[in-house]
């Protein structure tokens, strides 16, 4: 009797467990026939804040783009396209935007030109200490004014900076409104914005997961999707282990995620998944410390070492076969990238020998190049992520006769070493700006640049870059000047572009337009560009 009762209880318990487990394993996307659709997206990192002016992580940008629309966005061809602004007029110093008349704020308040101006003024205000301030506006003083009568917003810069309009397509230029404008400290817990989604308090835990709910009154999707095509709920899950992202994609636990390249074959074999490549803005380049007294202060020595290895092979090894050769510090997809084909090194070791000889070096009996008895000893600092490519380059340089020391560190330490010490000669610089503008890395190469850690002093580059940033935004002259500036920097061996990494995302069948997903940087996807299937 007891045994029978126990069996009965056990059966119920097991059935309950199976139901609970099955419920926990429900597919990520759901369309129960009620018209409600949901997506689950993996974030590789957490956000630091939902205040757009201060957010600084790729995960944060995904959330920002869900909550706050920008005045303009980039279209599939990398050109400026309307969003909250229906039209605009731009010069290097002034941009005047005309706003759409149907913009709504998530808290129901009115979105006026004054509100938009207040949101952008905060980003431009040095007191806000936004890490994106100079990226967006350059170093000039900026005034943003709104005219509610005409529905226009004017951004006035005291210095010419024609990348302003590109900067305003970035996630951190998202427009806040309502309570978030009057008290930005509320943005973290109760963000009020102009974007297609609002943050739900249900089940949200920082560092774990966030649920966003579609605003049904939202209009004006910049990518041409109707509000009904967007998922009614998006759950962002923080999954920092890329292997876990792969498992979740394969088991249907998430609909969109960026796994490790080593897992691509397994994911490509899954018929329900689609692989999508998203362009990134930055590139990995060699940055040469050329301060007075440093071995690489001599341009001939810098040029010589760039000829000691095959650039194509370095690109293939360093990017695991998925990246492409970058033209400069810019990725090939960034506006005005290029112009350096004729000055890139060709792996000509004979030229390298000649250049070193011209610089006063001679190869010693031990095969190491030396000058005045002192061997050419260089320290190459590299972040762990780029270790494989750096090892290839180092082995080629060593074989050529350079006494090379590899100093492999974390990304943060690599930056610290280059920024604050002289304990390096060559840095494998992992440059990944969250938005692609030609001026994005200017500070590293301008002789008076605030981040000119290498001590670059290239007057020709300084002049060309200054002219380029001041040219009319839509003119041919602008890109011509930028290409000349890139050729000057690469030709002078102030940097050697290596590879532009590829960003691949895999999506499940619940996403209807995997090839149309839009991203400012490849590492965060604009949810307004995701159409849900069914």
């Amino acid at each position, binding site marked *: 009797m007891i045994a029978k009762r126990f069996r009965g209880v056990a059966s119920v318990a097991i059935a309950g467990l199976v139901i609970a487990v099955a419920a926990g394993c429900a597919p990520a996307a759901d369309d129960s026939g009620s018209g409600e659709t949901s997506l689950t997206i993996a974030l590789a990192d957490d956000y630091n804040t939902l205040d757009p002016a201060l957010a600084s992580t790729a995960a944060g940008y995904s959330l920002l783009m869900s909550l706050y629309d920008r005045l303009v966005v980039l279209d599939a061809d990398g050109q400026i396209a309307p969003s909250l602004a229906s039209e605009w007029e731009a010069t290097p110093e002034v941009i005047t935007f005309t706003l759409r008349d149907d913009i709504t704020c998530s808290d129901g308040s009115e979105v006026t030109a004054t509100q938009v101006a207040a949101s952008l003024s905060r980003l431009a205000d040095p007191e806000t200490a936004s*890490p994106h301030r100079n990226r967006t506006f350059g170093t000039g003083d900026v005034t943003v004014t709104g005219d509610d009568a005409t529905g226009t917003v004017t951004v006035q810069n005291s210095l010419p900076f024609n990348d302003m309009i590109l900067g305003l397509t970035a996630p951190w230029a998202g427009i806040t409104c309502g309570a978030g404008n009057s008290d930005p400290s509320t943005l973290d817990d109760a963000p009020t914005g102009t974007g297609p989604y609002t943050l739900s308090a249900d089940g949200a835990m920082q*560092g774990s997961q966030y649920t966003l709910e579609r605003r049904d009154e939202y209009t004006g999707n910049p990518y041409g999707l109707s509000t009904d095509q967007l998922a009614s709920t998006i759950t962002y899950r923080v999954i*920092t*282990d890329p*292997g876990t992202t792969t*498992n979740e994609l394969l088991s249907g*636990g998430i609909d969109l995620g960026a796994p490790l390249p080593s897992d691509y074959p397994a994911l490509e074999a899954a018929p329900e998944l689609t692989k999508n490549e998203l362009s990134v803005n930055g590139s990995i380049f060699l940055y040469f410390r050329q301060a007075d007294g440093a071995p690489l202060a001599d341009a001939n020595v810098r040029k010589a070492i760039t000829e000691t290895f095959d650039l194509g092979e370095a690109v293939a090894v360093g990017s695991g076969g998925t990246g492409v050769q970058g033209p400069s510090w810019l990725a090939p997809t960034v506006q005005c990238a290029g112009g350096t084909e004729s000055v890139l090194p060709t792996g000509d070791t004979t030229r390298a020998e000649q250049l070193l000889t011209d610089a006063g070096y001679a190869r010693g009996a031990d095969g190491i190049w030396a000058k005045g008895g002192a061997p050419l000893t260089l320290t190459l600092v590299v972040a762990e992520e780029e270790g494989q490519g750096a090892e290839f380059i180092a082995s080629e340089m060593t074989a050529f006769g350079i006494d090379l020391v590899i100093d492999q560190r974390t990304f*943060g330490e690599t930056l610290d070493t280059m920024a604050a010490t002289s304990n390096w000669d060559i840095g494998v610089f992992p440059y990944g700006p969250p938005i692609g503008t030609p001026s994005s890395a200017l500070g590293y190469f301008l002789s008076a640049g605030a981040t000119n850690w290498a001590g670059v002093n290239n007057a020709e580059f300084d002049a060309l870059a200054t002219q380029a940033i001041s040219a009319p935004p839509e003119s041919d002259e602008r890109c011509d000047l930028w290409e000349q500036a890139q050729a000057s920097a690469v030709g002078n061996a102030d940097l050697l572009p290596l590879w532009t990494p590829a960003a691949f995302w895999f999506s499940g069948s619940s996403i209807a337009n995997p090839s149309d997903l839009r991203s400012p940087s490849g590492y965060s996807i604009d949810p307004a560009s995701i159409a849900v299937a069914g």
Partner: protein
Amino acid sequence: MTATGAVRQIEHAVGRTRVRSWVRYLTVRVGASLLMLVVLTFVAFLIVRLIPGDPARLIAGPDATPELVASIRARLGLDAPFSQQLTDYFGGVLQGDFGTSLRTGQSVAELVAQRLPFTLQLTIAALVLAVCLGLALGITAAYLTRDGGHPTFERAFVLTTGAVGVVPEIAIGAVLVSLLAVELQFLPASGSSGFAALILPALTVGLRPGFNLARVVRVEMLEILAQPFIQTAHSKRLTQTRIAIVHALPNTMTAILTLAGLLFAYLIGGVVVVENLFAWPGLGSTLVSAVVNRDYPVIQALILVMGALIVVGNLIVDIALGIIDPRIALQQHG
């Protein structure tokens, strides 16, 4: 004085001695635990400052001007002298104030309060699993293999427990996820939604110590089963289950409890890797993220809290051991 009175006096004297021994035992144990917490607090403060990398630069990004990096450093209090940072830290800890996250601005105490239940949930689930598995396997193996019985089973037991006992959690987790989440899609591969999500992380953390515990339990049980009082129990025709549970098992409790204390400490360490693997929102995954982002206050607090869990766990085990076997308190401090 009558004989009865003398006996009572002796009993009182023995009682007083026991109470005194217990007070001394507890004082020493609690005092040592408090001292360890103080040392831990100091070590946590020092360790984070040994992690290379400037958190202000990480927050500001590589493009940031030196002025912006300096202003962020000042805002975070990282430009204050070392001694002042240390004083502020100790003062805050004493008031339960661990500061705010450098990265998110969230109160660290609030963060710990949010994450601690998840870590405790996972650790306790894994501990229960390990102890149940260890006891069930160990006792069964002892019964089957005593007096040289079932040599094939013994070999299989030694081989299996030995093999699983040395496999890293990350490998156990990978196999379990691959089989139960990816292939069979029976359990979620990660996350913290519902009981189902707890099963794989708990198995990943608990299997290895469970198999190791089984080996210990078997050895202990074999020793107990060879004792004369067990032979007496057999001669009374008591059932095997009764002999195992009522007579043999309690005699292994001292060893098992001691091991459980060590296991708890081991599991707290183990969850750091496993929480990250399963995107389980506990202290471990938070610690990994904080280290990556040089989030000093969070790292300090988590080292302290996780260390405190181990210290408190061991204190509880010590007290439990003293209760189960009073000779421990008497012998050490009598």
